[in-house]
């Protein structure tokens, strides 16, 4: 069984059909890229998987469980995590507290009120920060970080709860070339315990880190397969040439 299986997803906003029977399958420990021209429905599909939008039709299964109607909180507790397209770190909190906030999400109310888990979580917070090269700024407010660093902090927060699937919506948006390269490096090690779905415009980046790709066009899946298969696919080349 695949880790994530979204089948026949449709999403209609009034007269606009954003998704028309799109599907997406992600295996354990797989990095899966979701690409397509602007308006092809990538972000909408991502939102339907994440629970930010409820699909008009279709079914989303995660770890053999139908999650189509679950709330974001329930999805997170089932092991799904995401990073939004717009950076949403908490700017006034320190980096340390941003990570702690993510890590302690499933502590009980009693533990939270009496701060019973913060000692035990300290090492995990510092490990996450070092892993994303932010340890020396642990006590700065997140607002003081560069845009690229904020993106890393947010990926670190998304990974803090040890999810089995991480959804990344444009992780390298607004990053410099060097930052993109580092982002790729930072993501590689997580493959051991986590699958990834990435929506991204930077095709080079996608090609470098993904195992499989799904190409969307006008709300439908145009092609799905390994990177090599997609690169050889005539119709994929066509839509990218057509719109370029």
């Amino acid at each position, binding site marked *: 069984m695949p880790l994530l299986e979204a089948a026949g997803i449709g999403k209609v906003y009034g007269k606009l059909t954003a998704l028309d029977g799109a599907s997406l399958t992600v295996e354990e420990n797989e990095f899966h890229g979701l690409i397509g021209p602007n308006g092809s429905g990538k972000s909408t599909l991502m939102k339907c998987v994440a629970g930010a939008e409820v699909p008009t039709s279709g079914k989303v299964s995660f770890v053999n469980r139908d999650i189509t109607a679950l709330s974001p909180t329930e999805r997170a507790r089932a092991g799904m995590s995401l990073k939004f397209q717009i950076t949403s770190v908490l700017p006034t909190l320190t980096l340390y507290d941003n990570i702690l906030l993510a890590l302690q999400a499933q502590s009980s109310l009693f533990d939270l009120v009496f701060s019973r888990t913060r000692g035990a979580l300290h090492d995990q917070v510092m490990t996450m920060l070092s892993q994303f090269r932010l340890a020396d700024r642990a006590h700065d407010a997140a607002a*003081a970080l560069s845009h690229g660093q904020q993106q890393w902090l947010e990926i670190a927060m998304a990974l803090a709860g040890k999810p089995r699937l991480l959804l990344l919506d444009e992780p390298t948006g607004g990053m410099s070339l060097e930052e993109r390269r580092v982002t790729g490096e930072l993501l590689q090690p997580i493959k051991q315990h986590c699958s990834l779905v990435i929506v991204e415009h930077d095709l080079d980046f996608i090609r470098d880190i993904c195992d499989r790709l799904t190409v969307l066009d006008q709300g439908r899946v145009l092609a799905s397969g390994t990177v090599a298969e997609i690169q050889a696919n005539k119709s994929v080349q066509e839509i990218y040439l057509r719109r370029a």
Partner: protein
Amino acid sequence: MGAAKQALRATLGEGSEVSMADDGSNRALPARQAAGLKVLPIVEGLVLIVALVLPLFLKDYLTVFATRVIILALFALSFDLVWGYAGIMSFGQALFFGSAGYGVALLARDLNVTSILLVLPAGTLIGLTTSLLLGGFLLLGRHPSSVIFVALGTLTGSYAADRLARGWYYLGGQNGIPSIPPMTLGSYDLTEGPVYYYFALGILTICYVLCRFLVRSQFGLALAGLRENEPRIAFFGYKTQHLKAIVFAVGGTIAGLAGSLYAFHEGFVWPNMLGVVISTQVVLYVLFGGSGTLIGAVIGAVIIEGVSFWLSDNYREIWPIILGVLLLLVILFRPLGLISFVLGERERVGSFGARAREKRHAAP
């Protein structure tokens, strides 16, 4: 870039909330905080010391006034917890204050129950129950409720309770319930004066310390997340609606305690105590003093009540206009309240990792 400058950028990074007036006076703050000096405990200590010695210098009628202010500060504390920390726009906080006031007034009038050991827990329980009911209704829907829905819902609740009390003969209608006997402890009558003052101050201090403990705990960190970006933290797995309902109920509980103290102190309750006017007043206390700091709520209540008292004595005709202008000026130019003159953004938000704090102190 120097540490101070970086911290300043962090302070200003907040954006829209921090406005024009901040440039000048805040510049010195982050440097002071980088040196590890905490402003908040100093302010809290000063306020407590002033409050402790105050009755020694006040005439009797002013001690009575000061007691009323202490009780209103407790009420303001409840609102700051709900709004300043959890970001819940509770525009009907007086509903819990007034319900508890009416509740204990009825206990005293109809059942002759005036023992402190019974009436204060009863009032607190009424605050808890009403806020659980209203909070459950407003906050625990299928989908997270919008800020405006909660604001209007609480406002309506408060307004409806006010109207209900006005129209209900059993509750005394327009006149409310007069001549409530004093609270008793054994055979001792707790009447207005220095003893009541210190009693109320003791309760305020206890509640303050409990609230402070709560907002600086890991639960407080969750509240910060709730306030700053509720949808985001739901994706971490927080049960955001439950968190909100809990804070709302804690706020309602404290408001209920304040309401019962108020009813016995004044010796009567009347419909305004439930209504929109007092609900708004408490919003002003917190805005004026500085939301999300606890002590700001106390300072705001003291200053607004003090200034109104003084103005109404000296400028009988135009004092509401003067007060209104004063409030507007502070809210326009100091959106983070009076406390922001001495308290920087970093300390206001605080940090929550226990060991992190030790490590920072150890660093050279």
